[in-house]
C-alpha cells in the first residue's frame, strides 16, 4: 500500500446521496481476476450513455472539475461489499473521499487500498459543495498526521477521526495482512485453547 501523509488538491463534487457501490462499479465489470483497470469504468452508467458517449451532465466529464479528492453526498459506498469500488476510485486517481457518512464495508475497503475516507458534518459538507461550485479550483489540504482538512480560501479547518492503528498503517503504507501474519503464534495459541 502507498504511504499517505499530506495531500493538496482541488476537489470533485458529487452531490448525490446514498451512492451505492453498484453505481461506483456496476456488477458486469466484476469479472476480472486482477485489480487493474477498474478506473475506466468508475461510475460507468452515470458517466457514459449506453453507446459509450460521455454524458455531459456528469461531474467527471465536466472539465471544470478535477483533482484527487472526491466530495460526495451522505451515506457514500452503501450496498455491495465489492472492493472493486475502492479499486476503481484509486485507479481513477482519487486518494480521498469526503462525505458526511460512509457505509461500513466501503470505509474499510477504502482504508485497505490507501484511500482516506474523511467524515465531516453535514454542514461542512454543504460548505464544501458551495465552495467548489463557486471556485472549482479551490484547493484543499489534507494532513493525515494532524488529522485535519483545510480549505484556506474559505477558512475551513476541520479535524477528522481515524483510529491510531489505521493512521499508523496509512502513514507507513502497512497492510493489515502483515500485522496479522506477525500474530501467528497468538492465533495458533488461541486455536489450541478453544478446541
Amino acid at each position: 500500500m502507498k504511504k499517505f501523509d499530506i495531500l493538496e488538491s482541488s476537489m470533485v463534487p458529487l452531490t448525490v446521496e446514498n451512492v451505492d457501490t453498484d453505481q461506483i462499479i456496476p456488477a458486469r465489470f466484476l469479472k476480472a481476476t486482477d485489480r487493474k483497470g477498474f478506473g475506466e469504468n468508475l461510475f460507468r452508467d452515470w458517466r457514459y450513455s449506453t453507446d459509450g458517449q460521455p454524458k455531459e451532465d456528469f461531474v467527471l466529464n465536466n472539465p471544470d472539475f478535477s483533482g484527487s479528492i472526491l466530495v460526495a453526498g451522505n451515506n457514500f459506498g452503501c450496498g455491495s461489499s465489492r472492493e472493486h469500488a475502492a479499486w476503481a476510485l484509486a485507479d481513477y486517481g482519487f486518494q480521498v473521499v469526503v462525505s458526511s457518512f460512509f457505509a461500513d464495508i466501503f470505509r474499510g475497503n477504502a482504508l485497505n487500498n490507501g484511500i482516506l475516507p474523511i467524515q465531516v458534518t453535514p454542514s461542512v459538507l454543504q460548505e464544501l459543495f458551495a465552495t467548489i461550485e463557486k471556485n472549482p479550483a479551490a484547493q484543499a489540504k489534507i494532513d493525515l498526521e494532524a488529522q485535519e482538512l483545510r480549505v484556506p480560501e474559505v477558512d475551513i479547518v476541520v479535524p477528522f477521526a481515524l483510529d491510531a492503528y489505521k493512521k499508523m498503517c496509512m502513514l507507513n503504507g502497512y497492510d493489515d495482512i502483515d500485522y496479522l501474519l506477525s500474530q501467528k503464534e497468538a492465533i495458533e495459541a488461541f486455536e489450541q485453547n478453544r478446541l
Partner: protein
Amino acid sequence: MVSSVANGPDILYIDKHLIHEVTSPQAFNVLEEKNIPLFRPKQIVATADHNVPTENQHLPIQDALSRKQVAQLTENCDRHGVTLYGLGHPYQGIVHVIGPELGFTQPGMTMVCGDSHTSTHGAFGTIAFGIGTSQVAQVFASQCLLVEKPKSMRVSISGDLHPDVQPKDVILYIISKLGTDAGTGHFVEFAGTVFEQMSMEGRMTVCNMSIEMGARGGMIAPDQTTFDYVTGREFAPTGEALEQKIAHWKTLPTDEGASFDTEFTFDASDIRPMITYGTNPGMGIKIGESIPEQNDASFIKSLNYMGLKAGSNMLNLPISHVFIGSCTNSRIEDFRAAATYVKGKHKSPDVSALIVPGSQQVAKQIVAEGLDRIFEQAGFVLRQPGCSACLAMNDDKIPAGAYCVSTSNRNFEGRQGQGARTLLASPITAAAAAVAGKIVDVSQQ
C-alpha cells in the same frame, strides 16, 4: 477474540469462511504475491454462484470472462486444498443458501464472506458479516480479521402479522421506517414474537437484508427452531457433540435487561405487503399507499429513473418482468408460498416470470414437491441455481426501462441490467404481479 491492538481494533478469529468466484481471485493472488500459504483451508467452503448461467449448466459457460473467473476459482481451490461445490455438484448454489443448508452455518460462530449479504447467517445467532477482498486475503492468511467492536441495535416487533405478510415484507417495512444508513456501525438483533415464530427461512430473509439498512450484521436468538433446522444437516455435529453444542447454543441469547446503543419497536399489526418505488431499499411503501413527496435532488433523481411520480399510487402499475430468487428469497419455503398462490392460475401474457432456486438441493426439492409442474402450468420459467437476475452478472438481465417485481435485495439503478427498474417485494407479491401483469395487493384479494 484473539487479542486487541493497542489503541486499535480487535483480532477476531473467524470460524467459517465462505468464498465465491467474484471476490476471491484477487485474494488468492495476494497469497501468491506474498508467497504465503492458505492458513486453514478446512474452514473454507467455496461455490460458484454470482456469474454462473442458469441454463445448460452442464455445458461450458458461454461468456468468456465468466468462464475464466469460474475456472480460476476451481484452480485456486485445487491448489490450496479448499472444498469447492462448483457447477454440476449436488451442493452448488448461492453461498448464503448452501451455508445454512449444509449445516456449515451454526449458532455462535464467527463467519465471513466477500459478500455483503453474509448477514443472512445471523439468523442462526451467528456473528456473520460481509468483507472486502483485502479482508478475504487476511482470513486466508491468518483465519483472523482486524475489527472494531460494533454498536448494538435492537429492533423489536411483537403481535400478530397479517396473514398475507411475509418475512420479506417485515424487513422492507423496517428499512422503510429506519432508512438505509440507520444500522451503519451496528449489529442488529431482531427480537419479539414475530421473529420467534418465524421459520429459519424467514429469519434468513430478514437478516439477509440487515445490510440494506446499513448494518454489518443482523441476528436472531437461536432457539428450538434453530436447533431443529441444524440437526441432521451434512456438516452439523451429531450425537453427543450435538447435544453439547445445543447446550452451549442455549446460552447465546441476549440477557434479559441487556442494554442496546439503539432500540426501535414496531407493532406487527401495522405491517402490510410492501413494495419499493425508488432506487434504494429504504424507499418502500405499503402496496396501495402513495409514493411520498420530497423535494431533495437525490429523491427526484431516483423517481425519474424509476419513471414514477411522487404522490401517485403503484396499484395496477403494469409490469413486464418477475424474478423470484436471490439469497434473500430462493429457499424452498419461498417457492412453496409462490406456488401456493399461482396454483391453478396462469401468468399474464405480458410478463416474463423467472424462478431461480438458491441451490441444487432447493431445485431438487421443488421437483420432489411437484412445484415445478405448478410453475410450468402457470407459464413461469424454472431455471438452475445461481444469483441470476439479482445482480445481472450472467445473461439474466432485465431490459432498460422495464419494471421487474423482484424478490431480491437491491433496487439500485442498473442492478438488474442497465436501465432496469426494480420493485422489491415478497415472493407472494411477485407471484401475484406475474399473474395480474400489474402490481396488486394480495392482502386485498
